[in-house]
């Protein structure tokens, strides 16, 4: 996590210096520097954002969509992400700028329909239990929730608006997503970026919480240790189950012809030998590799047609590659894809 935080830093600074030659006083450094108004016009903050060159727009979003490194930075969705983020974070509480807020909402709602990847945002939108299709209402509810949060004590980890009306008024016009520090928190960019990352990680943890049964009743997201423990317990329990079941399966008499038809009928709709053969994607595994030593297959042929010995032997040899996984074309293709992915 640390090198990512370090990498975020220079990008931010370069983004600041690159786009705002007028010394905008980016909030990450000094909140009160926002008070002098930005050179941009009012209400066009997001259009200005949209006109930003892509790398800088990506830089703006590095704080939020950090897998811009792991995946190709999508410009369009990142704009949407930024807009949504800004709509959630920027100053709506100040009643001074209702036209801007509606402008923001309309822009974001219009662009949201084109979005491709909304995973971190959707997790936050789903917090308000609203579908992305109802983007306007979801954003408005988020707005309301933001205001409620502002009223509440800042016990949450998310960056929300605090006092400081002056900076509120001027902050909305900024094209950047500005992040407010909580009360009594350090405002240097390091901790802010760290909090951003932590927030993303908390979003993921929430998703994981939903996966793990019996973990949903945690009070808040920031019971991180407990959630992590639950997740680990669940994974370990699943692995123990796999062990236990594999032990039992190993002890089962191999004479069983496994009744594959019935098995696959249980899981799927097809139930006949033909479909049994057709269900397995043969394109993945290479044909051939006939193992001539497989002479005795009485138990396998019990449930199958004797006329299809060749097919079954083919499938058996395909298992050869299943376990060893060293079949040349497969390994080559997978290796190349591995290399591509690990690069």
């Amino acid at each position, binding site marked *: 996590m640390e090198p990512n935080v370090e990498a975020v830093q220079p990008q931010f600074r370069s983004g600041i210096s690159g786009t705002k030659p007028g010394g905008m006083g980016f909030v990450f450094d000094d909140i009160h520097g926002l008070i002098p108004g930005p050179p941009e016009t009012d209400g066009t903050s997001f259009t200005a954002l949209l006109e930003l060159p892509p790398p800088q727009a990506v830089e703006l979003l590095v704080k939020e969509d950090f897998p811009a490194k792991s995946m190709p930075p999508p410009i369009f969705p990142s704009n949407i992400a930024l807009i949504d983020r800004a709509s959630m974070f920027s100053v709506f509480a100040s009643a001074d700028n209702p036209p801007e807020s509606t402008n923001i909402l309309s822009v974001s709602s219009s662009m949201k329909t084109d979005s491709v990847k909304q995973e971190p945002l959707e997790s936050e939108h789903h917090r308000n239990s609203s579908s992305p299709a109802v983007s306007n209402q979801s954003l408005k509810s988020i707005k309301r929730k933001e205001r409620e949060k502002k009223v509440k004590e800042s016990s949450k980890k998310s960056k929300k608006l605090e006092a400081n009306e002056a900076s509120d008024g001027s902050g909305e016009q900024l094209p950047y997503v500005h992040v407010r520090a909580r009360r009594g928190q350090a405002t240097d960019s390091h901790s802010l970026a760290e909090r951003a990352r932590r927030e993303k990680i908390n979003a993921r943890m929430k998703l994981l919480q939903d996966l793990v049964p019996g973990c949903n009743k945690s009070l808040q997201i920031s019971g991180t240790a407990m959630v992590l423990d639950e997740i680990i317990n669940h994974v*370990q329990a699943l*692995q123990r189950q796999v062990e236990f079941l594999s032990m039992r399966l190993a002890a089962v008499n191999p004479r069983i012809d496994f009744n594959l038809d019935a098995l*696959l009928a249980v899981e799927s709709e097809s139930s006949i030998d033909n479909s049994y053969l057709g269900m397995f994607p043969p394109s993945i595994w290479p044909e051939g590799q006939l193992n001539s030593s497989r002479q005795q297959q009485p*138990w396998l042929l019990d449930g199958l047609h004797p006329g299809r010995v060749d097919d079954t032997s083919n499938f058996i040899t395909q298992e050869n590659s299943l376990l060893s996984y060293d079949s040349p074309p497969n390994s080559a293709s997978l290796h190349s894809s591995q290399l591509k992915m690990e690069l």
Partner: protein
Amino acid sequence: MKNPNYPLKKRLASRFLKALEKIKYNMSPSPVSIEEKRRRHRAVRGAAYASMASSVGPRRAWSRALLRKMRERKRARRNPRNADTRFGLNQLCDVVPGGEAMDSRSLLNETAHYIECLVAQVQIMREILHSSSSSSSTTL
């Protein structure tokens, strides 16, 4: 479940069944020694994880790590060192295979997908057990 081309559970089931057949074919019908039983147990467990990893393919980091481990294990087995590289899994970093080399966010992603696959695999194994135990006689 995740792959639109072919449902995960079907893929898992098919590969695992094939692996099981191979194991059963290679092993003697009724193992007597404890070591044989243990070997079989390890083989089945390895087949479970192998089918999981191979049906997911190189799409996920944990499956890639599992495949890597399998390949290393296979090579280690050729030199009969009998190195028992079981999928040693302790904490989340180690629980999810290949977790050491991931940053926390992708680690959580991987964990989520790994949990889903594990659940599917466990269901399949249970179904296999139940169907086989109900249809034929099992000698334990």
